[in-house]
């Protein structure tokens, strides 16, 4: 009889690990802090270097999760504490209330239509609005509604209305739900799990570009991050794939990508975020595909086109799409207050002069920061989860029985994350099925 494994994080790496484990007959708890699996990949339009559609390759995997009876999805949840040891971990998880009974909800969306309150949509990076009760995105898995309690009029009534009202406000969703699934009385729930092994797959967040005020993010409307641009260019995004400026809703004519924002910078993060050169190249190509006359310029330090198909992709970008690559660190960005265009000041390393160039939209390749969960494993100096021995124990953390996959262990692209996920799943399955976790069997100490 095998014990379950906890996969922490439902991005592509977590999903792959869960599927591999389930395929091997192991019970899996897949925990994510968001209401749906999919992670950052679900927010991408197309992936480099093949330009295949992120959803097409991700959503079948997401849907496959539902077909295994031995995968249990625990959404809107975060780990509070982990204790124990390999073969016998005790994990305490806190599940936020969704205020919707997910056993009854069938994702029909009637509640969403009728809800009167709108707030910025985080999935679309704040570029569009969603309702207080919402389904995270159309292909969400699980496809269930949840209520954002801060936005909800019933759960968090605005003070002026609260005084005037005689009882609870709104509640429209509760009334219209055909499955009677809305439940305002839900409370946070503590879940305790006993698992044999843990796979950390919690992914990343973007470094806050407001820490680098000279780039004007947050001040200048037409400065975006990579992720925001990905949502703009997505067919299923806030503008149905129309790349438009925040200031006037018009298509840009000259877009600039600024690489290494917060990466490779001793002031902020000295590591390289690995995939941003390729992401920028891809985005520039997509911009050209959407608007053939747009000028695209990428300001870079080194073009990190190291992976399979990457260098060819960059060559295509240059020759076929006319994307300009300018080698130079951008010093600052200024805004023209009337046009809201942006003037980029950079060190042109070819001429050794400081130059200025005007663009009407800027996309920042912001550094990634690992989202480390509160688990007793060692971290590197940069804050990533540390590998015990990358050569002899590739996906193990410094604690036996806890494995780590994906970008939370170091910047990498999708194929590398998927590879690690499969490797970790097999290791975790070994422990789950009751094979020992030795210190010195077979003279090793490195192979758990």
């Amino acid at each position, binding site marked *: 009889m095998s014990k379950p494994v906890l996969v922490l994080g439902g991005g592509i790496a977590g999903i792959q690990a869960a599927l591999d484990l389930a395929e091997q007959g192991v019970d899996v708890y897949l925990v994510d802090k968001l209401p749906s699996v999919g992670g950052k990949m679900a927010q991408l339009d197309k992936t480099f270097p093949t330009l295949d559609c992120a959803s097409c390759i991700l959503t079948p995997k997401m849907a496959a999760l539902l077909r295994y009876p031995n995968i249990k999805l625990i959404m809107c949840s975060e780990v509070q504490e982990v204790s124990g040891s390999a073969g016998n971990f005790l994990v305490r998880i806190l599940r936020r209330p969704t205020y919707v009974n997910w056993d009854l909800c*069938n994702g029909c969306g009637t509640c969403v239509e009728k809800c009167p309150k709108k707030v910025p949509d985080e999935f679309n990076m704040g570029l569009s609005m969603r309702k207080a009760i919402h389904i995270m995105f159309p292909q969400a898995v699980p496809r269930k509604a949840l209520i954002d309690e801060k936005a909800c009029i019933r759960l968090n009534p605005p003070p002026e209305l609260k005084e005037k009202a005689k009882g609870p406000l709104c509640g429209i969703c509760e009334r219209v739900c055909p499955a009677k699934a809305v439940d305002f009385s839900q409370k946070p729930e503590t879940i305790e799990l006993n698992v044999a092994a843990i796979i950390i797959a919690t992914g990343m967040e973007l470094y806050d570009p407001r820490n680098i005020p000279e780039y004007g993010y947050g001040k200048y409307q037409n400065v975006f991050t990579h992720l925001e641009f990905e949502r703009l260019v997505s067919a299923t995004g806030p503008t149905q794939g129309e790349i438009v400026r925040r200031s006037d809703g018009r298509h840009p004519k000259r877009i600039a990508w600024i690489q290494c924002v917060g990466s490779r910078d001793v002031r902020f993060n000295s590591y390289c975020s690995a995939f941003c050169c390729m992401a920028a190249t891809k985005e520039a190509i997509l911009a050209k595909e959407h608007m053939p006359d747009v000028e695209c310029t990428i300001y870079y330090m*080194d073009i990190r*086109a190291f992976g*399979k198909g990457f260098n*060819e992709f960059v060559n295509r970008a240059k020759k076929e799409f006319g994307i300009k690559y300018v080698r130079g660190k951008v010093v600052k960005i200024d805004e023209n207050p009337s046009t809201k265009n942006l003037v980029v000041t950079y060190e042109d390393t070819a001429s050794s002069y400081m130059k200025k160039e005007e663009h009407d939209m800027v996309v920042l390749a912001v550094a990634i920061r690992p989202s480390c969960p509160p688990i007793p494993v060692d971290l590197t100096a940069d804050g990533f989860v540390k590998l015990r021995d990358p*050569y002899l124990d*590739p996906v193990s953390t410094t604690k036996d029985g806890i494995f780590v996959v994906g970008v939370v262990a170091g910047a*990498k692209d999708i194929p590398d994350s998927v590879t690690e996920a499969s490797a970790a799943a*097999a290791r975790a399955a070994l422990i789950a099925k009751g094979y020992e976790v030795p210190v010195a069997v077979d003279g090793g100490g490195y*192979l758990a």
Partner: protein
Amino acid sequence: MHEEPRIGVYICHCGLNIAATVDVKEVAEYAKTLPNVVVARDYVFMCSEPGQNLIKDDIKNLGLNRVVVAACSPSMHEPTFRSAVESAGLNKYLFEMANIREHCSWVHGDRKLATEKAKDLVRMAVAKAALLEPLEEKEFPVYNSVLVLGGGVSGMRAALELARYGFDVYLVERSPTLGGKAALIGHVDLQTRGSDIVNKMIELIRRNSRIHVFTNSELIELKGFAGNYECKIRVYPRYVNERCNSCGECEEVCPIDVANEYDFGLSRRKAIFLPFKSAYPPYYVVDHRICTKCGECTRVCRFNAIDLTEEPKELNLNVGALIIATGYDAYRPLKGEYGHGFHNNIVTLFQLERLLDPEGPTRGELIIGGKVPRSIAFIQCVGSRNTTPNARSYCSRMCCTTAITDAIKIREKYPYVDVYIVYKDIMTYGSDESLYLEAGRRLVRFVKFEEEPPSVVISPEGIFIDLYEYTIQERIRIPVDAVVLSTGMIPRRDLEDVVRVTRVSIGGDGFLREAHLKLAPVESPTKGIFLAGAVTGPKNIMESIRMGSAAAAKAMDLLSKGKVVAEPMIASVNEDICSGCAICVGVCPYDAISIKLVDSDRIAHVEEALCMGCGSCVAACPSGAMQQFGFKDKQVRAQVLAAFG
């Protein structure tokens, strides 16, 4: 199935999602009028318990033998309803769905038009349902063993993981020793030598009774399908056995000498030799390809360890899966390319690794051309990134990190040696960026070119690196004592042997192609054959090891249930009609079709375990002999005819 179809049709309201736009009752009434329909019902949520029970009860009570549900997309609930049907005792493939939600009620506003369309979609589903046949999910038993082709770090890693999971592993290596290229890399990172890693892995393999190592061996034949492969390997004779104690006297008298590939050509070796200090098996070997059988070695061996009469052996092995981990070759610059071959002080990156290795030909001393150079320049992207006409288009991924690591080591050991790195882009991605910073701190000089690659000028005054430097926009000439060409990774010259035997496919860059670059990075398109390490493209050692682990995991996914289940909606040949024209054979992307002789007739044969059910062969078949279960011509045709009444 020759019985009369008895079809039950169920129209789902899906709450109001369908019912608000489509008149579900009208559709149910209409369904009753269709041929072969015995019962038609509508219900608020067909996927719910009570909804499913309607179906199950009708199957039992009304003797239904086909079921149609008109509801949401099959991608949502086809498996749900198939399970329901199966639990009532009916074959789960006797079920068809009509998508009247995503394809109808949600996208059309006009009630009348949406209802008419829903009726059409139901009619199409009913027409197909009448022609559905029960399908079996065939199971095949599997062998609990795996053949790993390639004894480098990724192959060894895969073998160790598989053995841990209880599989028998046949580790087949072409050269006389395990270890691959990693064993020869002096500095994998600032603290680790390649041989440190390799030695530990070899030690673990030695002690593991489930791993059977065959060095000096090749895979010469592969038959069968995923879970059930029959392999034939040929073990070439070593001519030396375990009685050897590596005294080396045979080596001294051997008359044949060749460039030593284990030092990347920096030294020479004899036909009888020890590949490197911790080679495994840990004794000498005779290179059977060049030995003249003169017998001198046998004469001097005091331990009776040499037997030149040894014959090659062939072994048959049954395995469930294959992992191809045959690695790469180092790019060999053309004679004259960057001066290569014209001066002893121009070496490749791999040769430098041997020079810096304490177990290398110079005991780890940076001796090039007889002495330690006063200045040394690395030229990056040699053979990569289209820098020269002979170069490949891709980046070889590991050369910047390797060159910078070596540069740091050189500066550490020889602080008076000037080190230059001549580069186009520095590819120290991820956390390797810290090496770039460290190199700068140690005053390694970085010099950049862009479009025009640097040239190496050999003159009586010495060696010069000539380039148009990008950051100062001037032509410069750097005098150096030695040059290191950072050569990239290319596919092995003998990769075609692997491809011929296993029929895996080669990608555009000459390396092996994965089933899907993102979703299946360690799987080949052929089910049951997995890929690990640099055989798919340039990888560093850590990445190769990781892939070995992942490939082992994937093999385990396949074999862990003790059986493989074949996809039921596969192609199948009507042998009476098939004329053996073999058009289908070439069309199949999975090599699943072959021509067999049936009573002296050539007939196409579909290997059920390999067919993935795309249907390309069906459309290609000129006679209609090839059909696809679940998507037979007559079934698709029935839908076409029913589409517009």
